[in-house]
């Protein structure tokens, strides 16, 4: 079924080969590096976006928390890491920790209120949190640089060894390693009791409460973890681009992340990756060809997926197999 489904007493693999998914992932990342050596900045942006969409997958795909405000945690992570680099140290790894902690802290504090709401109310509140963050960053000009953005971020070499270079080779590998580690951890989580219980809450909060699960507390936990990962993505963006603008809090970012996730398939980690890569690539190519109407193509794609592959593109192989076997 999906990569988050447990098959009892057997390690879930793709086509029966252990770690095939991971191997393909690494192969694609290495291949892209050699195929598009002049697009490393764009490829790095895709990787950062993958991380943000993975965080959304944890929150929305696993735990079923409807949100359109994941940018709040992303942006807070970005500003935290940016300010840390400007005022404390330019060492990237401590900056990552700061970004993740900042994202998690915001998610925890707002989650205490948000996780009591459901459905549309919840969506509106998540949007509100991101808007409030946006406005604070806008007004606190002395700290954040306001609409001009936070400047003066100077990064030191990663772990004191790898200097950030002009083409972005270091940035690419640095970001990939972080994203890959988070991906592996999320994969563990998906099949662990916690991941399963989040899926349970997603399917039936009433039933979870009736088997004694502290649903609210666990939702706050999931939202906090997702916030930490989103903060990490923001921190990476701040470090790699060495600039934080108000855009990090934009509604657009939250919404696009959601579209990428739906495109790929919610609740599936590979879905988050596939959706992001396809969305960003189509965006990149189509926007270059026709800067005004590229959204049309994206819209068409989303429509197609929603109608024909409601479980997302990650479900395509299963859907095709069923088609070939003549089942529906």
């Amino acid at each position, binding site marked *: 079924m999906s990569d988050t489904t447990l098959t*009892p*007493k057997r*390690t879930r693999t793709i086509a029966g080969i252990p770690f095939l998914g991971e191997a393909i992932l690494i192969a694609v990342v290495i291949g892209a590096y050699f195929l598009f050596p002049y697009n490393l900045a764009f490829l790095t942006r895709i990787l950062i976006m993958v991380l943000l969409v993975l965080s959304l997958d944890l929150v929305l795909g696993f735990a079923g928390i409807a949100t359109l405000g994941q940018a709040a945690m992303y942006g807070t992570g970005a500003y935290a890491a940016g300010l840390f680099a400007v005022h404390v140290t330019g060492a990237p790894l401590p900056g990552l920790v700061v970004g993740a902690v900042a994202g998690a802290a915001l998610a925890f504090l707002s989650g205490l209120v948000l996780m009591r709401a459901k459905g549309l109310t919840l969506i509106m509140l998540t949007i509100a949190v991101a808007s409030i963050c946006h406005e604070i960053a806008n007004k606190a000009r002395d700290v954040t640089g306001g609409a001009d953005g936070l400047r003066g971020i100077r990064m030191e070499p990663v772990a004191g060894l790898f200097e950030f270079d002009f083409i972005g080779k270091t940035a690419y590998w640095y970001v990939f390693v972080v994203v890959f580690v988070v991906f592996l951890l999320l994969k563990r989580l998906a*099949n662990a009791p916690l991941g399963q219980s989040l*899926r*349970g809450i997603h399917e*039936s909060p009433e039933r979870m409460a*009736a088997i004694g*699960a502290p649903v609210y507390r666990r939702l706050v936990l999931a939202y906090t973890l997702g916030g930490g990962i989103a903060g990490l993505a923001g921190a990476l963006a701040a470090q790699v681009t060495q600039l934080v603008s108000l855009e990090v809090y934009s509604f657009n970012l939250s919404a696009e992340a959601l579209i990428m996730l739906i495109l790929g398939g919610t609740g599936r980690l590979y879905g988050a990756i596939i959706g992001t890569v396809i969305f960003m690539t189509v965006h990149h190519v189509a926007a270059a060809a026709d800067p005004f109407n590229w959204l049309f193509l994206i819209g068409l794609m989303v429509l197609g997926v929603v109608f024909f592959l409601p479980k997302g593109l990650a479900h395509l192989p299963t859907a095709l197999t069923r088609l070939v076997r003549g089942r529906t």
Partner: protein
Amino acid sequence: MTQATGLRVRGLNKNFGGLTVAQDINLDLPPGARTALIGPNGAGKTTFSNLITGILTPSAGEITLNGHDLRALNEAQRVKAGVAKTFQITTLFRDLTVRQNLRLAQQERDGRAQSWFRRADSWPEAEDEIDAQLAAFRLSDMGDKRVDDLAYGQQRLVEMAMTLMLKPRVLILDEPAAGVPSSDSHLITDAIERLPDDLAVLIIEHDMKLVFQVARSIVVLVNGAILTQGTPDEIAANQQVRDLYLGGHHD
């Protein structure tokens, strides 16, 4: 913990504004009880169940389990204290397998639901326990099927098996046979008859055949208050109950 008096309900009241949905209810469910709660639609049977499980807060009255006050506990905490229930309409994780459903209850009971690194199915004793539970409910062949792919009667059994994974002391079955085709209702009756001896069971049910088959004591609820209670024979002979269920004009 010392005295196993089971569940004791005293003077339970619940009002929604001026509407009284539970009125001075007294009920004892000692270990091993097989008590049926019957009554016409709207008599407050499900309300009573919700008051016991913590979904609703009583306006007045006491609820204790083996001497421990349950009133301050929320739904999840009451489950931990030993009060579990099945829903009137089967409520399961439909997209998950039967085994996964049971495992979710089990991991909550054992307090490892927050563990995030080890695979959920990597506790061998726990998996053995699930196997045993599946066998006890004659669901061994269904373990790896999705709940959604099962017949409704079987889903009912899964819900019971799952709820029993919690090792409750009091089990509330809210219309366990509702929606189950009569050809399958013996599955439910059998399962209820095989429940552990020391478990206190409250069965809320419309199906009188089932009630008289499994209950050793019957409580009749009308308009939120207990009309009468007694053994199945006493209830069957009670004229008030006969009027209620058969209508006055039948004799």
